[in-house]
């Protein structure tokens, strides 16, 4: 089986400071990988470098495209990369406001992505928007409301609907449950797990919440100061951490 994403020796520097460096991994179709680490460890830098929001200074990010097979997304042309980010990729931001158009209706937010890949029939766009609102548990009647009138949890779910409507194969998520209260968080986790299973999605999830990765991620990568210090099966890394930093991280979680 060809990996969906191959990351080879990726590094991103901020001047002389290290953003992230020497990152290597393969992600296979249907796999969910978590990236954990304290703030400033380079998690988001890495995610943004992989998703094409930042240009890595070194290394290759090879994505298995539907048309041409494995292609390095770092060196591909801008239009190609943008097409990829509309069709095969999705990016769920920590703050829903960064991923939504706040002055456009909920239906419009979902429809925009469909129109970006060539959908033009108003009726079918609206129908699919309504279908996706239902899947993320937002009432149909809210389709014409603006996201600014939604609660934080609803905005986050709308952002997920907007991202998944075009059937992407790889989803990047930056703290998808950050800032949500626990009941909303549980609901979102359940939703994400179901979607991952039904659609066979691969996902890379950046978070600092170990409970979230235990439930969502198959694999885990632990970062510290821009370096990957440990990686492996999620429950193995959490139950039997090998690196001193991971041990500290795991033992620092408060028990409820």
């Amino acid at each position: 089986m060809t990996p969906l994403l191959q990351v080879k020796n990726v590094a991103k520097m901020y001047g002389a400071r290290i953003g992230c460096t020497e990152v290597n991994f393969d992600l296979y179709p249907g796999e969910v990988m978590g990236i954990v680490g304290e703030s400033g460890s380079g998690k988001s830098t890495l995610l943004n470098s992989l998703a094409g929001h930042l240009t890595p200074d070194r290394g290759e990010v090879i994505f298995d495209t539907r048309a041409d097979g494995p292609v390095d997304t770092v060196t591909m042309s801008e239009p190609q990369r943008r097409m990829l980010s509309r069709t095969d990729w999705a990016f769920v931001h920590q703050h829903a406001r960064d991923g939504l158009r706040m002055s456009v209706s909920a239906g419009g937010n979902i429809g925009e992505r469909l129109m970006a890949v060539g959908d033009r029939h108003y009726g079918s766009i609206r129908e699919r928007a309504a279908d996706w609102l239902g899947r993320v548990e937002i009432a149909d009647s809210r389709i014409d409301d603006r996201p600014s009138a939604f609660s934080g949890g609803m905005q986050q779910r709308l952002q997920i609907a907007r991202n998944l409507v075009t059937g992407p194969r790889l989803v990047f998520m930056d703290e998808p449950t950050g800032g949500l209260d626990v009941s909303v968080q549980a609901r979102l986790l359940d939703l994400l797990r179901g979607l991952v299973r039904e659609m066979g999605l691969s996902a890379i999830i950046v978070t600092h919440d170990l409970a979230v990765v235990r439930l969502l991620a198959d694999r885990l990568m632990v970062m510290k100061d821009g370096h990957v210090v440990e990686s492996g099966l999620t429950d193995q890394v959490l139950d039997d951490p090998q690196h001193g930093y991971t041990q500290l991280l795991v033992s620092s979680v408060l028990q409820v």
Partner: protein
Amino acid sequence: MIELNNVSKSFTLHNQGSAVIPVMEGASLSVKPSECVGLIGASGAGKSTLMRVIYGNYLAASGSVMVGGTDVATAEPREILELRRHTLGYVSQFLRVVPRVATLDVVAEPLLAVGTPVNAARDKAASLLAQLNIPERLWSLSPTTFSGGEQQRVNIARGFAHDYPALLLDEPTASLDAQNRATVLELIAGAKARGAAIVGIFHDETAREQVCDRFINVSAFSPRSAA
């Protein structure tokens, strides 16, 4: 089916003066299909550790842990996940679930993961829950609010939903009443009859005698320096 060869395990505590605690040395065992092996030994002797090494959530320091042709000690994460989906089941002492998911779906999940159609998976889950005396009115609720014994039975139902060729059972009969214990022992006997290789920890002696074909005392695997 399950074959351990000279497995050792130690924990290194980097944040406590890099103390190295050896917990297991020279562990070897072999379990054939249709065989149930009971692990015995005092509390703290390493029964659960051995089980976790087989399941792959503890990393073996050396030796090989073969389960149905995959060496868990060296396999890639995705190979272990594949193994767990199709071949190796584990009933732990604690139920760990996503909050808010209905009990019926919790039990059906392992079946859905191997591609069973939703209706068939739900039917199987329902029959297991009924067999384990979980009242039907609870099926649509999340098991997080259930009593200890009920959670344990949900966990067992989940573990037996898919017919794994290899099963690890960590005290499946603890905290169950006589009737439910009998049901669980029946399930274990059924799994043996269809050819599953089982490794189990049973504190309850009658249960142990009833299902296990032979016993392995894990204190034999304790490192000599620690003993």
